[in-house]
């Protein structure tokens, strides 16, 4: 019987970086759905945070025509000083193959004023 295994990446870092958090795939399968759930509290009114999910250990966030290992991306903005903001993005109906031992990474780019705090989750649903 086909089963879906949820994987979760969680991170709270508010600065730019490669490989802020990662998970390792434990069984062969294919990613069917990706959910970005991004939230935080603004520092200034110009901040935004771009988050990338990738099989690569370095980011391609500001790159055109990326390799297929760049899987998904979401961006949250912080337009109100000191206010909470959130974004949910669900990408269903995928069929991205993964193998046991693959690492999935999240990378992040900060534009403008960084948030004072953030709490981000990326969930990957893998059909085995």
């Amino acid at each position, binding site marked *: 019987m086909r089963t879906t295994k*949820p994987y979760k990446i*969680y991170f709270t870092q508010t600065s730019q970086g490669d490989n802020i958090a990662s998970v390792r795939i434990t069984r062969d399968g294919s990613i069917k*759905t990706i959910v970005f759930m991004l939230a935080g509290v603004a520092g200034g009114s110009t901040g935004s945070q771009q988050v990338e999910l990738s099989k690569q250990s370095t980011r391609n966030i500001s790159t055109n025509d990326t390799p297929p290992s760049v899987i998904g991306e979401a961006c949250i903005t912080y337009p109100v000083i000191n206010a909470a903001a959130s974004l949910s993005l669900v990408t269903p109906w995928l069929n991205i193959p993964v193998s046991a031992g693959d690492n999935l990474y999240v990378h992040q780019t900060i534009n403008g004023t960084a948030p004072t705090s953030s709490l981000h989750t990326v*969930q990957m649903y893998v059909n085995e």
Partner: protein
Amino acid sequence: MKAPTKPYRLYWAQTSPNVTTSDSVATLKVTRKGTIKSISFMLAGVAGNNISGCQQVELSKQSSRNIVVNDTPPGVLAEACLVYGVSAGAACLTQVVPGLDIPVDVGDTLYAHQVVTGTAPASCTNSVQVYVGEV
């Protein structure tokens, strides 16, 4: 006939000062074997007297939360987050996660857990609907 989809619902409503971080704010018991096909979060509430509040909700097969944990066990099924960006203002979020095939068995318990950060809301009314395709 194609196997029917049975909707289950977790619902909880809280008011200040009880909107707090907690395990198992609501539970349900699965009554027939099947697979979860979709999960829908419907979160709503009214902010406290600040603009920095946030409520994270997790759906899990585990009785304790893993909301602020990376690389969680597969018993952690889904998560959604509602922020309260306007002081004393209403806020809501609807999030659907379709295309799943997560097996559940008769007697399995599904739990909703909650983490509140920043200023807690004055009230909240939250639902998580779980759609199970029966076999």
